[in-house]
C-alpha cells in the first residue's frame, strides 16, 4: 500500500473511533447513579425543574435517538448549553482552548528538547558523574508532585525576579509567551524524566550497535553519527513515548492550569465537575478525546515516514 493510501486509511479508521467516543461521552450522563436530571438539578429542585432539565437534555427520548441527535448536533458544532451559566458549551470551549493548547504544545516541545539533549549527553558520558547527576535529577523529577514543582517555580523564580506572572494568561502574544514559560517548565519537569530515562537507554543501546562502529570505522565523526543517524532512531522512540504519554500529559496540564490559574480547559473541567455541569463535562471530554486521537494519528503518520520497516497496511 502506498503511503497516501495508508494515511487515508488511518484517517478513515478514526471515523468509527469518533462514533465510539461520542457514545461514551453520551453515556457519561447515564453513568451517574439514579436519574441524571435529578442529579443535575440537585435534591432541592422541584419536579417541574427536573422535568425541564430532562426535556432540555433530551433525556426523555430513547437512547439511540439521543445518540443520533447528539452526533448530529456535535457535527454542527452544537454541544449543548451549560446547565449553570446557560452559555453554549462550544463557546465556553472556544474561550478556554487557547491557554491549554499553548501549555500542551510549549510543554511538549520543551520536554522533547530537554529529554533529547540530556539523554544524548548522558549516554555519551555513561557512568560518569555527569550521567549520574542527570539520573539523580530525573529521579527527582519523577518523584516530586507537579503542583509542588509549579509552586516552587513561583516561589523561587517568579516572585523574586518578577519576570513572570504568577497567574493568568497575559495580554497579547508576548503576554501569552511570558505567562506560559513557568507552566511549560513545570510540564517539562513532570513529563521529561520518563522520556529521558527511556531515551538514555535507547541511546546507550544504539551506541553499541554494529552500524555505529562501522560508521566510525568509515571515518564518520561523532556529530554526524549522532545527528544524521541516531536522531532518527531516537525520534521513533520519542513519537511512541508521546503517544503513550498523552493521557498523563493532559492530567498534568489540568494540575498546572490550576496551579498557575491559567484559564484553560482543565480549569473549566474542574469547575464543571464540582458544579455537576454535565454538558460542559461532556464537551471537554470530547475535545480531549479528539486531541488524543489526533496525537496518535500524527504519531503513526510520522512513524510511517521515518521507519521503512513499518508495513503500510
Amino acid at each position, binding site marked *: 500500500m502506498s503511503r497516501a493510501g495508508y494515511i487515508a486509511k488511518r484517517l478513515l479508521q478514526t471515523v468509527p473511533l469518533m462514533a465510539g467516543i461520542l457514545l461514551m461521552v453520551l453515556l457519561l450522563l447515564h453513568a451517574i447513579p439514579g436519574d441524571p436530571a435529578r442529579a443535575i438539578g440537585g435534591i432541592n429542585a422541584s419536579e417541574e425543574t427536573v422535568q425541564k432539565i430532562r426535556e432540555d437534555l433530551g433525556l426523555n427520548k430513547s437512547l439511540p435517538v439521543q445518540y443520533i441527535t447528539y452526533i448530529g448536533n456535535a457535527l454542527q458544532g452544537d454541544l449543548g448549553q451549560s446547565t449553570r451559566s446557560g452559555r453554549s458549551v462550544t463557546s465556553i470551549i472556544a474561550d478556554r482552548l487557547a491557554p491549554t493548547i499553548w501549555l500542551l504544545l510549549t510543554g511538549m516541545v520543551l520536554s522533547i528538547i530537554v529529554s533529547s539533549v540530556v539523554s544524548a549527553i548522558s549516554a555519551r558520558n555513561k557512568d560518569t558523574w555527569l550521567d549520574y547527576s542527570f539520573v539523580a535529577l530525573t529521579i527527582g523529577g519523577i518523584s516530586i508532585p507537579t503542583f509542588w514543582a509549579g509552586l516552587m517555580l513561583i516561589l523561587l523564580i517568579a516572585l523574586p525576579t518578577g519576570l513572570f506572572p504568577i497567574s493568568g494568561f497575559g495580554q497579547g502574544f508576548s503576554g501569552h509567551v511570558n505567562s506560559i514559560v513557568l507552566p511549560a517548565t513545570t510540564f517539562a519537569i513532570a513529563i521529561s524524566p520518563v522520556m529521558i530515562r527511556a531515551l538514555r537507554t535507547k541511546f546507550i543501546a544504539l551506541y553499541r550497535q554494529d552500524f555505529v562502529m562501522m560508521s566510525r570505522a568509515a*571515518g564518520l565523526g561523532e556529530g554526524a553519527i549522532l545527528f544524521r543517524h541516531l536522531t*532518527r532512531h531516537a525520534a521513533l522512540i520519542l513519537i511512541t513515548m508521546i503517544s503513550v504519554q498523552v493521557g498523563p500529559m493532559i492530567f498534568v496540564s489540568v494540575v498546572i492550569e490550576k496551579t498557575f490559574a491559567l484559564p484553560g480547559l482543565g480549569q473549566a473541567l474542574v469547575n464543571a465537575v464540582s458544579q455537576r455541569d454535565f454538558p460542559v463535562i461532556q464537551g471537554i471530554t470530547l475535545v480531549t478525546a479528539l486531541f488524543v486521537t489526533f496525537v496518535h494519528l500524527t504519531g503513526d503518520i510520522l512513524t510511517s515516514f521515518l521507519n*521503512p*520497516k513499518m508495513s503500510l497496511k
Partner: protein
Amino acid sequence: MSGLLDITNLRIDLGQARTPVSPVGPLDLTLDVGECLGIVGESGSGKSLTLKAILDVLPEGLVRGAGTLRVMEQGKWVEPAAKDLRGRKIGLISQEPGAALDPLMRVGDLIGEIVRLHSGCSRAESKTRAIDLLRQVGVPDPEKRATFWPHELSGGLKQRIVISMALACKSEILLCDEPTTALDVTIQAQIVDLLRDLQKQHGLGIIFVTHDLALIRQIADRICIMYAGLIVETGPSAEIFKAPQHPYTRALLAALPDIEASSGNLQPIEGTPPNPTDFSVGCRFAARCALATEACRAARPLLEKTERGTMVACFHAGVAP
C-alpha cells in the same frame, strides 16, 4: 614486496580493571601491498579485537593500551592517528552485514554519505559515485538498488554494500572481520571471489580474520595463528598447512575435516581457552597441551624463527605429540 602496514607491540587493555588485564597482545603484525594476511583462531582468541584496535573502534570498555601503528605513505613510513586512517587508508568489513548498515537510511544514501565525507563532492555527484561503487562490487541494477532500504536486500547484497562503503575512498587496506561467516556457502564463495578481484584490481592489502581454516588456506598468503590473545605461529600459508610446528596449530588442523582422510574421526581440542583474567605467566596453551612441561608453565615462549621460514612460540616446536 613493499610494506604497507606495520604494527608493533599492540596491546588491548580492559579499561576499568584495577589490575591491568590485557585480552590481546602484545603482538606484531605486518602487511605488504597486495598481500592477504589471514588471522585464525577460536572464538575469543582476540582476532576480531585486533582488527578493531587497528582503527581504534574497540567496543566499550576496551582500549588500545600500547602499540605503534605505521603505514606507508608515498614511500615513507608515517604514524597517523587512527581517526585519520578510518575510511581513507583502511576500510573495515564486519561479520554481520545486516547489523552494519543503518536500517533507517537508503543504501545509496549510506554510501553517498561516506563518499561526500572523504571527497567533499556535491550530493548529486556522490549519488553517481555511489552507483559506480555498487556496480564495482557487482550489485546488479545498481541505480534501482541504491534506492533500497537495507532490510530489502539479501545478506550477500548487504555485504557487497558494506564492501563498497569500505572502498568508497580508495582504501589501500581492507580489514575483513569474518566477512563470510553469516552468509551461506554459495554466497560465501561469491564474496571471497569479489574480495580477490578487488585485491588484484586495486593492489589492496587484506587482513582476513576467520576461524574457517579451509577458507583461509585458499586466500591467505601468510597466516597468523592466534591463541588467547597472542600469535603462537605465523608464516607463509603453504608452510603452515604443510608442517605446523606449534601444538595448537597441529591440533587445529587435526580438528579440520579432511575429505581424503580414511578415518572419519575428527580430533577435538579438549578444554577451553583461558579467560583473560586468568592468563598465566607461562604458555597460555599449556593447560590444554599434551607436550606441556614445567618450563612451559614457568615462562612464556616467544616467537622464534624456524628453518622453514615461519615463526613459532613454543619450547617444543616441531616435536611430534
